[in-house]
């Protein structure tokens, strides 16, 4: 990642991600949650390269990850402007510690079977579709621009996941079993996506963000319709559920993920290539 070149000469256009803004800590924290979700999931999806069931799927998951990484870069750059620290996307991606990441637990979980990945991608891309559709109306011009752009991308991701969930669920006995297993593994991590917290409430109030809980019904309804089409069953309410990611409380895999993602930048500070 390299910081985008600034262009101080343009004053007649909408603010770009580079434009410094007077501090808005609530907006910064809200955007950071969205950015960290995208960044961390991009890192997980990249792990599929050379490990997917087909080479086409290596490409697909890498491309989905690339879209998410692009979204994360634009959002993190904005976070660095909004929080008044002037940190670059690289500073934020590589030099924050675990407790400073605001992503949900769903995206940090270790890569498991392909069925789990498709269940996770269906859940997350459905959430992102609803989220970005709403954020096209954000009062933050950078966030609304990212949302407008990203909406096209995540709609395609959702379509991709949907095709696989239906194909595996409505496939052989074995593929059905594994796809159902993937849904069950995902279940404890779904509720956290729709938790309102102080930051999202304040961001929604200010017109910057949306209340996560307001997205729940549309998401559940979409995922349910796909699951039914796939002849699968929606998992029962899980006995435990993940929480705390937005407050920087993460699960065991997160530290390992960050170690892998950050170690080169930290071993060679300031290196470029």
């Amino acid at each position, binding site marked *: 990642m*390299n910081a*985008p*070149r600034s*262009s*101080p*000469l*343009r004053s007649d*256009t*909408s603010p*770009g*991600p580079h434009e410094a803004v007077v501090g808005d800590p609530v907006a910064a924290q809200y955007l950071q949650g969205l950015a960290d979700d995208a960044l961390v999931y991009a890192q997980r999806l990249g792990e599929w390269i050379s490990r997917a069931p087909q080479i*086409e799927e290596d*490409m*697909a998951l*890498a*491309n*989905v990850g*690339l*879209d*998410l*990484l*692009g*979204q994360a*870069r*634009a959002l993190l750059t904005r976070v660095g402007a909004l929080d008044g620290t002037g940190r670059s996307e690289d500073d934020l991606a590589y030099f924050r510690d675990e407790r400073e990441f605001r992503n949900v637990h769903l995206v940090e979980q270790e890569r498991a079977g392909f069925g789990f990945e498709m269940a996770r991608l269906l859940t997350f891309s459905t959430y992102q*579709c*609803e989220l970005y*559709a709403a954020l096209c109306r954000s009062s933050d*011009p*950078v966030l*609304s*621009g*990212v949302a*407008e*752009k*990203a*909406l*096209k*991308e995540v*709609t*395609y991701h*959702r*379509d*991709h996941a*949907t*095709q696989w969930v*239906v194909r595996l669920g409505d496939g052989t006995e074995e593929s059905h079993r594994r796809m159902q297993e993937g849904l069950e593994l995902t279940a404890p991590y779904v509720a956290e996506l729709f938790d309102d917290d102080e930051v999202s409430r304040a961001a929604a109030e200010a017109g910057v963000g949306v209340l996560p809980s307001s997205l729940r019904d549309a998401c559940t309804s979409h995922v349910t319709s*796909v699951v039914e089409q796939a002849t699968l069953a929606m998992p029962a309410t899980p006995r435990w559920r993940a929480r705390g990611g937005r407050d920087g409380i993460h699960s065991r895999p997160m530290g390992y993920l960050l170690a892998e993602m950050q170690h080169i930048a930290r071993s060679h500070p300031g290196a470029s290539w």
Partner: protein
Amino acid sequence: MTEAEVIVKSPVAQAISDIPDPEVPVVTIEDLGILRHLEVDDSSRRVLVTITPTYSGCPAMEAIEHRVVHEAARHGYTCSVETRLSPAWTTDWMSERGRQRLREFGIAPPEPGASARGSGPVALSLQVRQVECPQCGSTDTEELARFGSTACKALRRCRACREPFDEFKAI
């Protein structure tokens, strides 16, 4: 230039408009609709350029930006490049010349009318679309993979001539 403005078309403006896309070098950044705004100020020898990515994570953006700055410098201009996300790029901005060149290169151009369909969440697209084979012109083609060699392409195969080919995804 499709929907972008050209204030002054000078040699430097022409050189920037003619920059080839790093991934699909048969089309220019103007053909693709990546170049959104180009303004040349001869008195201060400055060029202002606005570009937009095809996809958020498009890795070609930095190469394009460097090339724009380089072309400006070659003509004795300093250059500011702004990357703008909104309005979001659509394949509808691609010029007819660009579509023709893609076809000749063996890439099926995107279907027109993508932006009219809206960018909101759409119904599942499990149905079969008709895409023409750039090799033989047959519409008897099938999708092999929804994600191709770059973020902006999908992979298809022609059932008539049996050749695989890339399709520029309409967004």
